[in-house]
Every structure is written in C-alpha cells, then in structure tokens.
C-alpha cells in the first residue's frame, strides 16, 4: 500500500541515480541488516534443532521447567508492542504527531516490560537451579532467549531515541524514515520471538 509522499521527498528513490531497489537507502539498509540477523538466529536456533535431534532425552516435557503461563503473557505483550509500533508508523504517515508519540511511548513501555518479565523469569529459573550449565536444555534455552532479549533491549534503546525525536516533531508525512526503519527492526524481533516461543517453550 503506497502512501504518496511529496515529489522530491527523501523517502522516494534518489532521482540522480540508476534504478536500484526502489526504496530509500535507510530502508534498504535495515532490510539487508535483518538478513544478517536471520543468519545469526539460524546459527543459534539451528544448533538447538540439531542438538535436540542428537539427544532428545536431554529435553524435559514442555512446562516442566519453564513457566509457560508467564511467557505466554509475555508473548502476547510483545505482539501488542508490534501493533503499537505499526500504529505509530501509520500515524507518522498520516502526520498525526500526537498519536505517533503516544503509540511510540506505548511501544517503549511494553518492550521494556517484556525485557523486565524475561529478567524476572531468569531470576526464578536460576533460583530453582536451572542454569546455562544445566545440560543441553539449559545451554540452548539461555543462549537463544538471552540473545533475543539482548536484541529487544537494543531495540528499546533505539526506540527511545526515535521517540525523543518524535517529541521534537522530527517526523513528517514526507519524512518518517526513522519510524519505518525502527519499526522493521522491532517487527523482526517480534517475529523471532514467535518462532522461539513455539520451539523453546511449547515443543
């Protein structure tokens, strides 16, 4: 769905260049960066799959060790934050500065809550003696969710920066690149969690 920006806007491909990807540089750059992130999580998740196939007995039944209800809520929260993010994006396109700011702040808050709940979960698990050194299960669990959490944290920090810029009125319907680009990153992080939640907690 293309929303027409003004002719000459920085969000249109540069006029003085050969035809490229058809999107502005920063968007192309973020998509390309996300491809590398796909490969990074492939290494972690792929290793998990391989290790589990090689030694299925090392995995307890779902829910036996991990707290599924809490994590289910967390999953729902992250999905919510994706919605608030995309609503922020829609309002940036429409030029509604007030709603843009509200949705962005909500995204930051929900994102931070996700990290907080995850930290709480880790605390509980460690307290019960479930550590990274707890066999293959512990090794893969902490590494996969830990690096996902790290990516969410980085996302929250960048989101705060974008929110601050939004409060200074730096995003207009002719230039909302920052919002779109952080949005792509944020949705990606949500997407990875959708996969992780399923394979780490439910399978």
């Amino acid at each position: 769905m293309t929303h027409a920006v003004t002719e000459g806007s920085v969000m249109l491909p540069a006029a003085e260049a050969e035809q490229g990807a058809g999107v502005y540089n920063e968007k192309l750059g973020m998509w390309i960066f996300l491809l590398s992130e796909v490969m990074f999580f492939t290494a972690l998740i792929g290793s998990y799959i391989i290790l589990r196939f090689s030694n299925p007995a090392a995995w307890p039944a779902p829910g036996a060790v991990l707290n599924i209800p809490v994590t289910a809520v967390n999953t729902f929260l992250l999905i919510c934050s994706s919605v608030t993010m995309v609503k922020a994006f829609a309002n940036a396109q429409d030029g509604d500065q007030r709603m843009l700011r509200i949705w962005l702040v909500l995204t930051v808050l929900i994102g931070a809550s996700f990290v907080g709940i995850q930290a709480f979960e880790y605390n509980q698990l460690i307290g019960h003696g479930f550590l990274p050194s707890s066999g293959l299960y512990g090794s893969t669990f902490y590494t996969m969710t830990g690096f996902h959490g790290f990516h969410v944290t980085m996302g929250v920090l960048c989101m705060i920066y974008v929110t601050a810029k939004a409060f200074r009125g730096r995003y207009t319907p002719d230039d909302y690149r920052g919002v779109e680009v952080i949005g792509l990153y944020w949705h990606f992080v949500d997407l990875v969690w959708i996969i992780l939640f399923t394979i780490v907690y439910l399978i």
Partner: protein
Amino acid sequence: MATIAPPVEHAGHPLVDDRSFIRKYIFSTDHKIIGIQFLLMSLLFLLVGGALAMVMRWQLGYPGRPLPGGGVLPETMAPGGVVLPEFYNSLVTMHGTFMVFFAIMPLLVGVFGNYLIPLKIGAPDMAFPRLNMASFWTAVPAGILMVAGFFVEGGHASAGWTGYAPLSADPEYTGVSAGQQLWCLSLIILGLSSILGAVNYISTVINLRAPGMTWFRLPLSIWSLFITAILVLLAMPILSGALIMLLFDQTLGTHFFLPAEGGQPILWQHLFWFFGHPEVYILILPAMGMASDVIANGSRKPIFGYHSMVFAIMSIGFLGWIVWGHHMFQSGMNPTLATSFMISTMLIAVPSAIKVFNWLGTMWGGSIRLHVPMLHATAFVAMFVIGGLSGVFMASTPVDIYIHDTYFIVAHLHYVLFGGSLFAIFAAITFWYPKMFGRMMSERLGKIHFGLTFIFYNMVFFPMHQLGLHGHMRRIYDPSIYDFLKPLGGLNRFITISAFLLFATQILFMINFIGSWFRGRKASNNPWDDTGLEWTTPSPPPHGNWPVTPRVYHRPYEFSSPLVEEDFLPQDRELDTPPARAGSAPGH
C-alpha cells in the same frame, strides 16, 4: 539522518571541505579515508602475521634450536630462545587468525570495498558514511583484543585458526584459558564490523549507482565486491553464533560442543565451515575482480567474456554455500553427505576455470603493458591456477582422506591466499596507490620487489606439495621426532631459508609504499589510461568525489575502441556521433 543525495546536475560548484583535522583524518566518514585507515591497519597485521610465520619456520627448519634474537621472548613462550610446543601452537593459530581476519579480509573488503565502490559507481560516498566510520572503529578494538591475547596468563589461543572444539572449549586440553576467550571475543566484534560494512557496500551498489551505470556496466571489481559483501553479510553471523556458543562453553559451563553432557564437537565443525567456506571465497573473489580490472588495463583490451565473468562470480558465490563439508572429510561425518560435498566441490571448479580462460583470452592478442600492477595480476592468474588445481585433488574424498591435515593442504591454501589473493592485493595497491595518495610508486623498486617475491614465494610453497604427499602433517611442532619425516629435514630447511628471504624482500615494498607517499612523482588524474570512473577525478579525489554527478555512457574496459583515437574510452565520456555503423559493437 540525511540521505546522501548526489549534487544536482546543473549546479556545478566546487566542493567545499571545512572539516577539522580529527573529522578529516581520524573520525572521518569519508570512504576514501576509511579505506586508507583499513589499509594501514591491515598492512600492519600482514607484517605481524608474517613475523609469526618466521618464528614457526625457524622451529620447523631447526627444531629445538634457539631462535636468533629469541632471548627477547618471555620464558612462557621461548625459554632461552627455544620455542615451546605450546607457544608453537599459538603461533600456528595466530598466524592463521591474523592473516585471514586482520590482513587479507580487511585488505580486500575493508580497503578496496570502501575505496573503490563509490568511486567506480559514480557516488559521492557510501550510503551510510557514519556507519562506515563505525565499522572501522569497531575493527580497531577487535584487533587490540586479538593482540592482547599474547600477554595474558596461559598464553594466546592455540586451537588453530579453526578453533575446533572440544580442544578450544575446555582449557584443560590446552592450558589456555583467557587467550582462547579473547580470541572468540575479538572475532565476534570483528564480525560485527564486517557485517556493518557489508550492509553499507550492498546498499551502496544497489541504490547509489550514477545514471547510466547499469548492472552490466559495472566493472568486475565492483561485481566481485558486491557478491563478496553478500557472502560476508550471510556467513559472518554464523561464525558469530558459533563463537558465542564456544565462548559460553568456555565461560558459562554450557555444553554445545563438549561431549560430556551431550554436546556435539562435529556441530562446531559444521558451523565453522558453513561460515568458513564462504569466507575463503570472500578472500578470493575481490582479488579476482580487481585482477580483471588490472589485466584489462594492462592488455589494452576489454575483458574477454565480461558477462560470463559476472555469471562466474555469481556461481562461485552461490556454490560456495554448499561445499563446506570438503573441509570435514576426515571428521567422521556422514559418508553420503561427504559424497554430496565432493560433487558440489568439483562443480565449483568450473566457474573458476571459466574465469582463468577469460583472463587468458583478455591477454591474448593484447597490447601488453607490463607495469607493476600487471606483473602482479599475471602472477595472480598463474599462481591461482596452481592453487586451484591442487584443490581439485582435495575435492575428491578418497584422495583427501590421505592428504587432509598434511602440508599438501598448506601448499594449496597458500597458493590461493598468497599466490592468489596477496598478489592481487599487490596489484591493486600498486594500481590504485596514485589515486589514493596522489603519488606514483617507484616502478623500478616495484619490479624488483615483484620478481624477488615471486621467486622466493614459489621456493617456499611449492615444495610443500611434496612434503604433504610424503605424509608431513600440519601444525606439528617437531618433524624430526618422526622417522618417516627425518628425510624431509633438508627440504624444511630450504623452505625456512626461502621464507626468511621472502619476508626480507617485503622491506622493498615497505620502502616503496612509505617513500613514495612523501617523495613519489605526483600523479595525474589518470596515470594508467584507464576507463573507470575513479580516474575522472583528481588524485586524490576531493571529499564528495565529483562536483557534479557523473553520467555513464559505456561498458567497462573499453580499451582499443574503434570509436575513439586514444586506446581507451572512459565510461563517462559522451561521444558526439552515436555509433550508427552496421556491425558496430553490440550491447552498450
């Protein structure tokens, strides 16, 4: 965040540059400066890697004898100047690590990716100049960490540049703890630097080509750097993931690769080589691309089969993902899987061979100018052929079972990495030096350096084929303790002495490089009469490269074109009369 929009065509104005010294040369966002920063850093590490190899060669040529001047080394490394076995293992590891990650890779990708891409596509800079700066300044701490490993207790990493687990995962096996962790950490950080760089290169080539610079008008150096950047983008994260898992095994008690609790050592090998094989194509593709540029220039002829060269680069880039198991034939892997890797590995020889024939086809009937870059580029082709041929032997699983982990492999890898990549790097440095520094290098000194390097290089590495076939293992500390290797002592000494001479010869290059910077003849815009866009700017180009965006009208490598009197037709030169003759060059 400002998009770098090229200046509008009608507003021709001189480029104003009022940046401070620090913004201009230290924390610069200019791709040319960043390229030179990578150059200086990488050449330093090339020297370090070479020095480490000299100590290794001493031990192999004169096992157990005190290294001359070795008294300066600490007791933990070489008491009385005699290299310890543990230190020898670090030398092996760090020679490979520094050469692959901190010398060759940044020389090809960090230096020439940065320097050439915007200039040869007609862009004022990279798509993300600040990200570019971040990329370099991320590589620096990675380098510092890697050097720091020599100074920690337990010594530096010593599990080989391939870091196989469980040797690398448990300090109990090597006695090395902090050193191995620093190795992992440093490479993780370097990986981030490389990935950020790759994002920049890919975005720039896709989106910032000047009007008229269509995909099939890109010089092969740019095509190869583009495909290489894609390989970096997708392969480095796999290594990062694997290194993180290894680091966790070392520090957090995880069990990814440690067998005791179900970990899988072979998983490390698969992950490492899934990265590692694209990595070696990262180390050769830009070399091939730049060699093409130089060979066309030195032959005064267009590249023979330009389109097939492009498709060969793409094929190598693609096939490179499905051959990694050929590094693992001796690992105990699934034999059927091994066979599939044998087939794919033999297939990949085809596009490489196509490229070799096309280079020969380019030179055939050309009006050859044997300038220093051309000498290096020609040597590149010949040496790469040798390295490639030994590769065909290794591709065959039954043969590799015999020669795996012998000096035959060492010969192969040095023929492709030194004979291939490094000669191409010398060609590239000598070719683009005038553009970078505004000075010509000494042709005479360059020719002497080339000749001696070529001779000594072959004296060092060709005999290694023989060593390997005789059964001489890799990475061993003292060959003389094996009866069947005792007869090879003389050959080992011959190689060692040749290696010292090879290393010493590089002083000539250093003198040439540094001396020319201050006292070289001033370079014109286009000292090599080349057709690329970079030669339409001053040497060195100003910040922003062109006051007005160039417009491209021709294919690359239009040498000896019938359309013009000179023997070269720059890509941006507009011709008054369109080529209307029937039978004129098709495909523009």
